[in-house]
């Protein structure tokens, strides 16, 4: 016992950084022509171009209606009209739309996390007859654009009696093929030894999934959650098709569209409402920036 406990392992390995010949050496700073990376010369103007529409929206949301039509455009209103935001909240069902969108988005994201995980784990780890074929067929549906399946899906939703209800927005999106694909690929990269060790340790399949696979897949799950949130929150076409007359079931994107009349559009209110509808996404983006980037890097499939 004593022999096992003595002789700490680290002693056997000297720290490579403290080799005698290297101590005291100071790394010379690299000489640079510019105080910043030359890429910034290209990227900064690009960023400005990207940010300009957003800035314009912020400015517009603080203008009076007359100012929005002024030419040349006013870059900064003299007195910011914060009342525009209040007008949106009071004159429209904005809170209702916001709530509807939140309910739909949270439900869809949660169900995707659960169902995609289950499906992906089966595809990644459980051997069953026709696994490769079924996986292939499911993946193939990724290639079919929404417009193609719009009418069949609409008819299904109609037969389910979900038209004009939030269920119409939730049910067809409970599982997203992209999520299955993303998680399957990720699960396959996890070392199988961990699961085998857990099996020997007495863990059941479900226990392995919950205690080993899921905790190790948090980055992938976060990526999926973020992407799904983005898609669902911003979706316009599908709500437009399925929510016909029931204004109580309007989502934010549908509600925002009502600001644009056929004869007159109150751009300052549109801008204010749009900005408020973007708040959750801006917050999400700031919190989970790296998962956005990872998701975009791994997808390139749907947007």
């Amino acid at each position: 016992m004593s022999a096992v406990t003595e002789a700490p392992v680290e002693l056997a390995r000297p720290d490579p950084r403290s080799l005698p010949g290297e101590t005291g050496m100071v790394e010379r700073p690299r000489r640079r022509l510019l105080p910043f990376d030359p890429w910034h010369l290209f990227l900064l103007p690009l960023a400005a171009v990207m940010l300009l529409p957003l800035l314009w929206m912020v400015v517009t949301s603080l203008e009076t209606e007359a100012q929005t039509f002024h030419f040349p455009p006013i870059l900064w209103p003299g007195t910011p009209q914060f009342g525009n935001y209040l007008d949106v909240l009071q004159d429209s069902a904005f809170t209702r739309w916001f709530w509807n969108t939140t309910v739909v988005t949270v439900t869809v994201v949660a169900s995707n996390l659960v169902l995609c995980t289950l499906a992906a784990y089966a595809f990644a780890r459980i051997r069953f007859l026709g696994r490769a074929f079924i996986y292939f067929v499911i993946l193939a549906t990724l290639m079919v654009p929404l417009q193609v399946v719009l009418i069949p899906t609409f008819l299904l939703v109609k037969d389910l009696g979900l038209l004009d209800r939030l269920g119409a927005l939730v049910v067809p999106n409970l599982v997203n093929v992209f999520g299955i694909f993303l998680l399957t690929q990720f699960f396959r990269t996890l070392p199988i030894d961990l699961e085998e060790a857990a099996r020997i340790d007495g863990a059941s399949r479900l226990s392995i999934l919950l205690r080993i696979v899921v905790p190790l897949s948090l980055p992938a799950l976060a990526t999926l959650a973020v992407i799904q949130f983005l898609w669902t929150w911003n979706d316009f076409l599908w709500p437009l098709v399925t929510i016909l007359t029931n204004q109580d079931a309007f989502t934010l994107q549908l509600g925002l569209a009502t600001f644009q009349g056929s004869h007159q559009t109150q751009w300052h209110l549109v801008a204010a409402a749009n900005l408020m509808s973007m708040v959750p996404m801006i917050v999400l983006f700031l919190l989970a920036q790296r998962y956005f980037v990872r998701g975009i890097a791994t997808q390139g499939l749907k947007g």
Partner: protein
Amino acid sequence: MARVAFDEATKVYPGPVVALDHLTLDVADGEFLILVGPSGCGKSTALRMVAGLERISDGTIAIGDRVVNDVPPKDRDIAMVFQNYALYPHMTVEKNLGFGLRRRRAPREEVRRRVDEVSRMLGLGDLLRRRPGQLSGGQRQRVAMGRALVREPEVFLLDEPLSNLDAKLRVQMRSELKRLHDRIGVTTIYVTHDQVEAITLGERIAVLSDGVLQQVGRPQEVYDHPANVFVAGFIGSPPMNLLAGTALDGHITVGEVELQLAGAPDGEVLVGVRPEGLRPVGSEHGGPVFEVCVDVVEPLGDEVLVHGSVAAADGAPATEADGVILAAETESGRASVIVRLPPEDRPAAGSLLRVTPAPNALRLFDPESGRAISPT
């Protein structure tokens, strides 16, 4: 404690590829058995079959008195240490150690007590709150051992547990492993491709090649009396020298040298001799003498390895085992040999070294089958 019995255990992968071919092997209760062989020989498959991670295609494996072919891994009462340790990266050392017990619904105090006990035994006390990523290779290795020990299993399965450690640490962990086994005495099956590990650790070693069991025995016995050319080449570093010869009436002619070996059957034979079985002699020596043309001299500090060639019959075999060439023909009529000498006898490269086989150092093999011929 339990014994483990392979009875004609066979594993066939789709292809079909026979990974393990009718393995029959008994591991006694409390024994430390080493499964050794080159990569792809089926040793890990055999271990995984005991663990229940691979289905058994044919035959049976029994742990204790119970045939476990259809028993899931968790009910086999075994613990396994994986080559890459397979520690759960998101759990602390403490959680890693206790995972198996918690899955078996052991009471909280019991888990704590056993985790404490094992961490004290392995010197992991200070590391309990760390995660595997914050540990050195040796520490991870110990946690992996600890995770297996904490469950107090009937059988211990180790799959190349030392192969990811650096050479120095490996030697240290080797002796720790041995001490540990002496203390707890659990039946242990240890898989390795490293024949040094096999010889130093095992009570018995089982040599596998291409899924077929070649020889089982105590390490010294396997080293001294290899059952065939494969074992002769695989066990021992450098491998046994093999020279082609012809036997007639108890005399074996190898090149220009005539050896006496009673009981050798007439015909073509392979003569095997360990590098230390060749002793340097002076020019006045009367017995059989091989004249070795010295090519390369490798001083190892405590000994010197002399690589050279001797005159031998044409057709000396060039058998390969795990990339090691046993007896490569250097040029027509010559065969390469390796001689192990004490450092003070170090010859110069290019010189002529006269050696004679030590008494009882010669082994005979059938050149066709490769099997050892026991002198009658």
